């Protein structure tokens, strides 16, 4: 423990280094310098910069994937707040893969606490354990963790740069640094004279950075306010560059067809016909499929369809029923985890009314708007890769292995991501591009997946089953015993990233169920891991995406069984346990004018889930219309502890809810003959303009610690809608998608 603290402290040192015509500020490691990604040939300067200042101006590094969540802007704002620069006057870049850009917040998640009950000691421990991230190359954008990760370090980087520039100005003017101030990228002398940072950059590089104190949040001018996003102008003019927009001299366009029986190999293929088609340059054997290189993507897709292929079988049961039977079998094994066990959840308390229910949710695709793609150029000695990815170091390492190169020989560019939701933390699309590039030495090739390939070769949100028992007495919950079965997402994903699967209890598997802040005296949550080789991965909010539905729907059922108003029932159980969570329910009660009564033809439901450090409550209103049931209105309240950019948080809460509602209404990936049965948006649709509810969001800041925002809006949407449909129709939604059992407006 003490050793970990020492490493942590030393890791966080902030330093500076000279660059051509200027200075760079960043973190460096006291003992074991990480290879410097940005300054070549400076053996000793182990600096991993977040700030560059040269004659061209100020550049900030936000080494997290911008996939729509606004991280590039808010990360830059953390630096700019202390550095005193304006966001519209600086350049913000993603930067290369580098160990020093590890995610310190993500690994803290492994601690066996519930999150909402964390003590100050545990919070500190989580930060220190997070340092281990650098040892396993955890430069990952995910887990709604970016702001928790960068909050202190980035402000320190900005403050250190500012004070060093002030020292350079003080030396030049012959005054004390304390007499100087800074504004808009300039140092201001007592007499009003101003010196732009660029003019001080070279001198600043020769100064040892002073230690700094962070500003009082009361004095913040950027943080806590809506910032115009640095990527907005590009995204509304078609000039923002996504991975799929990479264009290089002499570039060829390719597509692929991989075995739709996922994980199976290719027995044989015949490309005679395809090779004769217009524009086709080459058909490449990928082992488990083929790639076609052509002069444009469409010609490649036509030719790929013309290749005759014999596929081998998938390593899982070929039909959906068999797959779910395998998941159900997991209940017969010993539980993998019992992350919550309070009182006696075996015995129904004397005089209590017992109820039980089973739930089922399907596999889901991510369906990012930008289909999977990557572009690669292999020269024989080096590989250059353009890939919109959420895990740069893992991508670099794995592609280096695929190319038989050292990791340093792989240059990785991370452009904008046209949606991520967890899908782009995977490495497959980058590795396939690498393999194609190896067969096309000296020629840059872009490998774009057709929508059908993308839909049918995802790492899916796993299908899951739940069995819940509970008991109510005198209007209160007195027992809740939940069992959840699904294959383990983290075991599969960690194996792909690290080549090893963590053993032991899988906390993330029961997230959204074991860690809900309800004071129920007899309370148990057990997780069961299904042995199943269907490819699964992190899907926005991960297991909370199914556990939120299971747990919160069951609470709604308990409230009805207890004869109570569902919102008041939850609130009463929650108040003593976690005040911030209760605050979110009180907020949606007020915002929606919740009375517990609805007129005929209108239904209302409440949903609540704590996930990724943030409690979120939602009320959803459904209305019976002639064409079907419309999701008319929604109210969302979240408590993020500290709202660094309220506008971005509102956008993430609404977007997260719509992502959850889309899945709840229509989302299902099913299997026949070992293949996914959905091909494209017509059979895997989502909410659209006309069936999206009018939504109001309130962002609260009563929580003790900052929470995430990218994922927590998704889980409560599904039970809130199901509970609203129950209120409207009297029919309980225990299985998703809801379009199978309710007449929803399409």
């Amino acid at each position, binding site marked *: 423990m003490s050793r970990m603290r020492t490493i942590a402290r030393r890791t966080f040192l902030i330093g500076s280094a000279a660059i051509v015509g200027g200075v760079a500020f960043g973190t460096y490691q006291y003992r074991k310098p990480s290879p410097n990604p940005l300054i070549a040939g400076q053996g000793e300067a182990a600096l991993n910069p977040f700030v560059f200042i040269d004659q061209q101006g100020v550049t900030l590094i936000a080494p997290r994937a911008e996939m729509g969540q606004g991280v590039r802007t808010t990360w830059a704002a953390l630096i700019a707040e202390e550095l005193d620069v304006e966001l519209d006057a600086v350049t913000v870049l993603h930067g290369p893969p580098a160990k020093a850009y590890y995610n310190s917040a993500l690994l803290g998640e492994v601690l066996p606490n519930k999150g909402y009950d964390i003590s100050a000691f545990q919070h500190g421990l989580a930060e220190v354990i997070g340092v281990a991230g650098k040892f396993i190359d955890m430069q990952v954008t995910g887990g709604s963790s970016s702001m928790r990760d960068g909050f202190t370090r980035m402000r320190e980087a900005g403050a250190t740069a500012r004070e060093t520039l002030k020292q350079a100005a003080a030396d030049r003017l012959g005054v004390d640094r304390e007499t100087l101030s800074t504004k808009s990228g300039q140092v201001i002398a007592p007499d009003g004279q101003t010196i732009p940072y660029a003019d001080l950059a070279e001198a600043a590089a020769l100064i040892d950075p002073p230690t700094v104190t962070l500003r009082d949040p009361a004095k913040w001018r950027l943080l806590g306010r*809506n910032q*115009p996003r640095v990527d907005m102008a590009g995204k*509304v003019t078609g000039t923002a560059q996504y991975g799929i927009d990479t264009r290089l001299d002499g570039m060829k366009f390719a597509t692929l067809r991989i075995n739709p029986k996922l994980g199976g190999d290719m027995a044989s293929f015949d490309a005679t016909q395809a090779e004769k088609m217009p524009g086709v340059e080459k058909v490449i054997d990928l082992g488990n499929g083929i790639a076609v290189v052509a002069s444009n*993507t469409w010609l490649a897709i036509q030719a790929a369809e013309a290749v005759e292929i014999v596929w081998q079988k998938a390593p899982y049961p070929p039909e959906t029923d068999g797959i779910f039977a395998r998941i159900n079998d997991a209940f017969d094994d010993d539980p993998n985890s019992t992350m919550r066990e309070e009182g006696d959840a075996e015995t129904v308390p004397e005089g209590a009314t017992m109820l039980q229910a089973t739930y089922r949710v399907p596999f889901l695709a991510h369906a990012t*708007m930008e289909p999977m793609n990557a572009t690669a150029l292999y020269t024989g000695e080096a590989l250059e890769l353009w890939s919109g990815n959420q895990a740069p170091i893992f991508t670099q390492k794995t592609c280096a292995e695929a190319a038989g190169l050292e990791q340093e020989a792989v240059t990785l560019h991370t452009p904008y991501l046209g949606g991520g939701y967890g899908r782009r933390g995977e490495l497959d699309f980058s590795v396939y591009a690498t393999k194609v590039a190896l067969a096309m030495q000296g020629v840059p090739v872009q490998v774009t997946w057709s929508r059908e390939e993308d839909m049918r070769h995802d790492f899916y949100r796993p299908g899951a089953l739940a069995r819940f028992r509970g008991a109510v007495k005198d209007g209160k919950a007195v027992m809740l015993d939940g069992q959840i079965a699904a294959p383990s997402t983290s075991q599969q994903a960690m194996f792909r990233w690290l080549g090893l699967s963590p053993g032991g209890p899988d906390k993330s598997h029961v997230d959204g169920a074991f860690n809900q802040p309800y004071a129920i005296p007899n309370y148990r949550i057990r997780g069961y891991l299904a042995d199943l080789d269907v490819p699964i991965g992190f899907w926005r909010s991960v297991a909370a995406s199914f556990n939120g539905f299971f747990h919160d729907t069951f609470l709604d059922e308990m409230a009805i069984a207890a004869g109570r108003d569902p919102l008041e029932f939850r609130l009463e159980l929650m108040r003593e346990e976690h005040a911030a969570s209760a605050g979110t329910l009180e907020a949606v009660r007020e915002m929606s004018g919740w009375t517990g009564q609805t007129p005929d033809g209108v239904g209302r439901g409440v949903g609540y889930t704590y996930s990724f450090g943030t409690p979120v409550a939602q009320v959803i209103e459904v209305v019976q219309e002639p064409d079907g049931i419309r999701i008319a209105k929604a109210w969302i309240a979240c408590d993020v502890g500290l709202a660094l950019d309220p506008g971005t948080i509102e956008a993430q809460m609404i977007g997260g809810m719509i*992502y959850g509602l*889309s899945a709840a209404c229509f989302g299902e990936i099913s299997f026949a003959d070992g293949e996914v049965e959905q091909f494209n948006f017509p059979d895997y649709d989502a909410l659209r303009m006309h069936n*999206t509810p*009018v939504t109001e969001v309130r962002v609260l800041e009563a929580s003790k610690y900052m929470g995430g925002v990218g994922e927590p809006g998704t889980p409560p949407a599904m039970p809130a809608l199901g509970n609203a449909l129950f209120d409207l129709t009297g029919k309980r939604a225990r299985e998703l998608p809801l379009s199978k059992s309710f007449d929803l407006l399409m």
Partner: protein
Amino acid sequence: MATTLTINGNRHQVDLPDDVPLLWVLRDELGLTGTKYGCGVAACGACTVHINGQAVRSCQVALSDVTGEVTTIEGIGTPDAMAAIQTAWNDHQVAQCGYCQSGQIMQAAALLAEIPAPSDDEIDEAMQGNLCRCGTYPRIRAAIHSAASLMKEA
């Protein structure tokens, strides 16, 4: 066979099979990457462009069927000289991942050209073919109303 196209006021010669969809001519042959590939089956609207002012899914228009002037997102405005509709999108901070927004803007621009002040129902009707997986619909709706006002003032 060489075909001549007029795109954003510029003439381009391309030599490709007749059935290559306009989308891929724009993106892969002419480097106009603002128009996006999303589904290839006219189910998402990401590839929306204008032909003679009409919003069309460029993934469904074969090269030989392009009979009029094509306008893409690049022809609407630039970061330094945004069109009113782009200003409205920027004011409302609509985009998240942003990938669908070129198509959303092109669809909305065609709507506004036809109906200068559309109602919510008219917006629903016109925009429901454009998918956004980030869920930016509420801000898109607000931006369309703002754009209508901005264009009325202009």
